């Protein structure tokens, strides 16, 4: 009896000892967990903080660029200034070449006319009576392309001669800076971008409604410009990027997906496929600028494809995107459950039927996502494009993938380096917003397609 109770007490104290040890360990375990959780939360907060910082910076700088100082002028096409014979009309019996020559002569005399005078008259009309400002300073207020715009309006409609019409003109970048307060108004005259008289007149225009800040459609519709920075836009770069994306989608997606399917589903595992696999994985880690060098050496120097062309850019980006797509597609194929494959094979489906009827449909959403992520990555790539001449200044919208063009990220790079900092800082951020918008759109399409396809499956 006593023996039993003794052993009972002994075992009880042993159990208490064990419980105490477990408890001590528990405290340590909970502590570790708490520390880990804390670190995790801190990491997420830091990451979100950086993203928030980036977005606030881009948005706060970029949003003002979507409004721009515009001048609303009453322009008189005064015959006293525009002394011009009427546009040549084709005479009976005149040869093509003869008519062409007459036309050319007419156009060059048109260019030689003093369109700045027309502009000056219109501006002085809106200024206070007898305002004392010299012509040179006065003409720093509208953007330098204003005279071309006036001329083009006339060429479009020669009937304007002798009439007065109201025309909206973009104000110069310096005026835009002044109006938006991008330059310190208290700086001494020597450090100001505009002359004193021009500054005063700008303020007057802003007050009497001649100058207003309107939505800057030019950002979307115009091409890049150096002579007239206020009219610089993204249209060329945007189209360049769109063409490159098309090239990447047309080339990289079928090639990448087909290679992945072959390697994963059909190729016999051998030394060769092992080597290929290692190389594909290594290619994914190759710096993108190396692909640019390759593109310059192979596509441009060897195949003599045009320089600065979206086609070549797209091909270089294809090379860069292929490993991403192949690796992601293979991973997707590997994740398909063996049960599904066995079900198909067990029924007597051939390998091809198994792949195309059963494996691909279930992996399609992940392949699609991988593809769009790859394309989005390519869309944001800059370095390889610099090496194939896509950082050239191109002042036209490419009409085909073979025309010279630049791309959105390259445009951001170029604008960021522009010497008119206080104007182009906003433009750069605006371009970043357009690029991010395009990427968000792409990702949204990916998510939309993915959920749709998954629901159907």
């Amino acid at each position, binding site marked *: 009896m006593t023996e039993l109770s003794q052993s009972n007490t002994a075992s009880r104290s042993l159990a208490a000892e064990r419980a105490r040890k477990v408890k001590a360990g528990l405290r340590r375990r909970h502590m570790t967990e708490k520390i880990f959780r804390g670190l995790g939360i801190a990491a997420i907060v830091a990451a979100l903080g950086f993203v928030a910082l980036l977005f606030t910076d881009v948005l706060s700088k970029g949003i003002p660029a979507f409004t721009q100082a515009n001048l609303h002028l009453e322009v008189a096409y005064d015959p006293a200034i525009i002394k011009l014979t009427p546009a040549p009309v084709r005479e009976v019996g005149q040869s093509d070449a003869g008519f062409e020559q007459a036309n050319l002569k007419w156009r060059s005399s048109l260019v030689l006319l003093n369109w700045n005078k027309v502009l000056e008259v219109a501006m002085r009309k809106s200024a206070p009576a007898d305002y004392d400002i010299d012509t040179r300073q006065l003409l720093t207020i509208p953007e330098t392309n204003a005279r071309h715009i006036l001329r083009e309006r006339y060429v479009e409609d020669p009937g304007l001669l002798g009439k007065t019409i109201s025309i909206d003109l973009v104000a110069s970048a310096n005026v835009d800076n002044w109006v938006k307060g991008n330059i310190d108004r208290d700086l001494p005259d020597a450090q100001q971008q505009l002359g004193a008289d021009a500054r005063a007149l700008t303020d007057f225009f802003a007050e009497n409604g001649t100058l207003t800040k309107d939505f800057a459609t030019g950002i979307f519709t115009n091409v890049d410009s150096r002579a007239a920075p206020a009219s610089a836009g993204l249209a060329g770069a945007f189209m360049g990027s769109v063409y490159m994306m098309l090239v990447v989608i047309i080339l990289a997606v079928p090639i990448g997906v087909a290679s992945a399917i072959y390697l994963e589903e059909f190729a016999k595992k051998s030394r060769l496929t092992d080597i290929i696999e290692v190389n594909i994985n290594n290619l994914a880690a190759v710096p993108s600028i190396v692909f640019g060098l390759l593109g310059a050496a192979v596509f441009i120097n060897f195949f003599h494809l045009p320089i600065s062309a979206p086609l070549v850019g797209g091909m270089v980006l294809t090379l860069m995107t292929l490993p991403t797509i192949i690796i992601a597609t293979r991973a997707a194929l590997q994740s398909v459950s063996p049960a599904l494959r066995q*079900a198909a*094979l067990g029924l007597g489906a051939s390998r091809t039927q198994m792949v195309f009827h059963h494996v691909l449909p279930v992996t399609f959403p992940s392949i699609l996502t991988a593809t769009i992520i790859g394309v989005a990555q390519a869309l944001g790539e800059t370095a390889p494009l610099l090496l194939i001449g896509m950082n050239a200044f191109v002042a036209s919208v490419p009409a085909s993938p073979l025309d010279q063009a630049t791309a959105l990220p390259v445009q951001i790079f170029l604008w960021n380096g522009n010497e008119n900092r206080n104007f182009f800082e906003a433009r750069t951020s605006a371009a970043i917003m357009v690029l991010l918008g395009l990427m968000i759109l792409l990702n949204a399409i990916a998510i939309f397609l993915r959920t749709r396809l998954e629901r159907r*499956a």
Partner: protein
Amino acid sequence: MDVMAGKVKMTQTTVESAMNPTDAPDRSIRIQAQDVKVHYGAKEALHGVSIEIPDRAVTSFIGPSGCGKSTFLRCINRMNDTIEGARVEGLIKLDGEDIYDPSLDVVELRARIGMVFQKPNPFPKSIYENVAYGPKIHGIATSRTDLDEIVVSSLRRAGLFEEVKDRLNEPGTGLSGGQQQRLCIARAMAVGPEVILMDEPCSALDPIATAIIEELIDELRANYTIVIVTHSMQQAARVSQKTAFFHLGNLIEEGVTEDIFTNPINKQTQDYIMGRIG
């Protein structure tokens, strides 16, 4: 070895005589395996199995995990071909024809020998599509009405039709485990196979679903040659007419189910049945 062969021979004669001849008209041997060895890479998983599988009867393979019974089952419709590094030696004949003959098309073979797997694995498609897929790829059904008929009759034979007739267009993955397995059986039957291999078809199912499947297997043996791998000795005893006991990659003993369970000749079989190994 000689003694062993003699035993096998003896049990076979008992199989022939013990089976009720009225149970099924054709009692001939359907599948013949001679000295089948399987290697996975360098490892030999099956050390020479010889067995004959009778027509229109249920043959069950029993044995502890890793004994090679599933491996051998998968040799019969050449599913081992799909495993990287698997190599099969020996001879397996279906109706006297070598199924490993290079001139034989494995796709055609699998149309003749259907398979049901351990875990129900319906395609992530509709119930109808699941059953119709086999006839479609083999070009068995020439018209939509033919296909409808095959689907309905297969589902009927699998005892599933009444339960799913109103939702044929709903996904097969939405059915219960037992229903899914019967769907897989219907899918296998839709191709019109002569032999159906079942690899532990009830191991993922509850007892009620298991009972339904066992009943179904019992009905199907009138028209099909069925080979079933099972972990459950009770199941083997309930559904099969012939039983083969595998252990460590060897076929230890085979014979009429009743004999194997009540009067095993080999010591290892006895131990397994008594629950001492496995």
